[in-house]
């Protein structure tokens, strides 16, 4: 059956000839429906640490049903790693459903605030940039403004890029939250 196949596995446990392509790292958005109970966030966060998986961002809040919370977790890894992350999440008793939204048509948003140095000369320009990004000025000081922006990660990054020339003093981001578009529910 397999007499002249190469006799080697990759460190991932996959036989060499079964992986024609190089494994590439990808960003995945996981939507995790959990019981809204004390300690659940700690279990999820602890699992990532314990298994040496990295979290790019994590946002959590109650759902339409107060018995549940939904976590949106962004992770970067190759497919087998992300599959392991999902399986491991499923071993946690309060985890009800884990969905990988990456391949789905999902709406992704995050909220960010950025404090930018704004001298009187630059202020107008900065406000114009904010307007272009449909971002709001939520605070204005003598030498700084705070801009609030929401959108997908690319939009927030683009806004930050534009503002960098004026001097970004501080930023804060909520992390991504995602829902599946259309009739389908995020848990399907």
């Amino acid at each position, binding site marked *: 059956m397999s007499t002249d196949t190469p*006799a080697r596995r990759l*460190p991932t446990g996959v036989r060499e000839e079964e992986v024609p392509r190089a494994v590439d790292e990808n960003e995945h958005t996981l939507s995790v429906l959990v019981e809204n109970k004390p300690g659940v966030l700690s279990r999820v966060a602890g699992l990532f640490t314990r298994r040496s998986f990295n979290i790019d961002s994590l946002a959590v809040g109650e759902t339409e049903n107060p018995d549940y919370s939904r976590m949106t977790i962004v992770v970067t890894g190759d497919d087998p790693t992300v599959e392991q992350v999902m399986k491991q999440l499923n071993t946690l008793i309060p985890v009800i459903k884990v969905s990988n939204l990456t391949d789905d048509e999902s709406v992704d948003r995050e909220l960010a605030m950025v404090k930018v140095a704004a001298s009187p000369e630059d202020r107008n320009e900065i406000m114009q940039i904010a307007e272009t990004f449909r971002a709001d000025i939520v605070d204005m000081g003598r030498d700084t403004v705070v801009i609030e922006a929401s959108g997908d990660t690319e939009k927030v990054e683009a806004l930050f890029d534009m503002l960098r020339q004026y001097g970004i003093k501080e930023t804060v981001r909520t992390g991504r939250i995602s829902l599946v578009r259309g009739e389908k529910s995020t848990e399907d």
Partner: protein
Amino acid sequence: MSKSTSDADAEEGRRERKGAEALVEGLKQEGVDTMFGITGGAIMPVYDVLYDDEDVDHVMMGHEQGATHAAEGYNTVTGRPGVCMATSGPGATNLVTGLADADMDSRALIAIAGQVPTDMIGNDAFQETDTRGVTMPITKHNYLIKDEDDVPDTVQEAFYITSTGRPSPVVLDVPKDVSKNTTDAVRGELDVEGYSPNYEGHPRQIEKAAEKIEEAEKPLIFAGGGAVISEASPEVRELAMENDIPVTTSLMGLGVFPEDHELSLEMLGMHGTGYANRAVTECDLLVGIGVRFDDRATGKIESFAPKAEVIHVDIDPSEISKNIHANVPIVGDAKNVVGDINEAMRDRDSPDTESWLDTIDDWKQKYPNEYEQDGDDLKPQYVIEQLDELTPDDTIVCTGVGQHQMWAAQWYTYTEPRTWVTSGGLGTMGCGLPMTIGAKLGAPDQEVVCIDGDGSFLMTVQELTTAVREELDFTLVIINNYYMGMVRQWQELFHDERYAESDLPHLPRFDEIAEAFGARGWRLEDEEDVEDVLEEALEYDGPSVIDAIIDPYENVFPMVPAGSGNDEFIMGKGSQGSRIS
């Protein structure tokens, strides 16, 4: 905090009682008749209930770690959850090693820990530890019960979770006020939304597996602890014997397949047989049943079963393709799945394995496990072989961790599941004696022996008190090399014979220690005394401790050095080994 009693009173079985009583009542509803523990401030209300309880036999241990291992031993031989109990703080932290051990080896275990009263939690109260936080990564689930009304449901849920799917410990952290307050709550419908283990293998995957088996030329079954837990031994035997497929097991799988059968290759891996390791390297189909492809079993991943397609049967989806990619993953209970595969094989031809079995026979001739009685020193293998001779087939063998454990795995012949109790995944020295205690209490009618190491024995020696008090009849043989033998072996082979902190020249006389505890002790030094001493000890109705002084330089062979492929094993006798490839 109790619910209003007006309607509830009318319901049958509802009565006001303390949270602690509700807890013990829950244990009884789960059929618990034996538990292991040590009392203390926060758990005293529960002990107070046990004081005049007639159904639950509480065994007081010498140390909470002992309680966990005893519960593990009890679980392994009975298949029912082991139960242990401790007070808050140091009592709870002493449970940690055993919980981690049970978690690694998938044992059903309930640990009940006392906790400071709810209104003091978070204040660093006397003997407060965040038990839930500490045990989170080493349990399947844990609960801090904050309301006495939740006691009945939580106990029910805990037992359900620990014993279904892939077993693993569940901790109940019980604050003292929860134990003392009264409640009339009773258990309701079991409802754990996020947990539904899958027991049945997918029919399409079963068919695929059967097809692969039919087509294979060099198939090999690799059975592990999961097959023991799911009682899949008869199904594994049928799959192998009906289709002439050889079987190797992991350390935890010993006994699933009778080692005296011609299709048995015994254990594979670091100290597995040469023939099992050759077979796994050459096979074209590996049927993993309840195994997790641990690194001590696989050796270097790159050269593990490199020519084989892998069928992987496991109840835990997260084990599939974790370490070794599965070509045919089947999530389900091993007993059901292998039973279904057997069913599917009835409509198919058995694989033609004649020449494969011939090859394996050659390897069996070429790489037998060997030792030599060369000097005056007693050989550990001989002692274990004699023990095997003198004890019945269904004897339960417990061990510590080290060389003696590996010799016990190699030189005793296992033919039945649930007769091998050891610490596999965690490798916990000191597990031997307390596991033996739990095993004997779980299987009082079976012969129970323990093959222990001198270093291991010393770590939990206080449990001799427990054994004597409980009048337990078992025989414990210390394979005494006056060394942390396994460490000494690695230092000899891989650290230029730099024996850092591994010699134990000042060990006490273990036979005298045993006598001082009220057990019986023997010192065994000569080969010609082995049979007599073993017979006497086995005969004695009580805890027997034999201090067998062995050749301190004896090494465990075969050996696959850590990081090498399984086919790069060192064969050898005594302290001498030579590389095969």
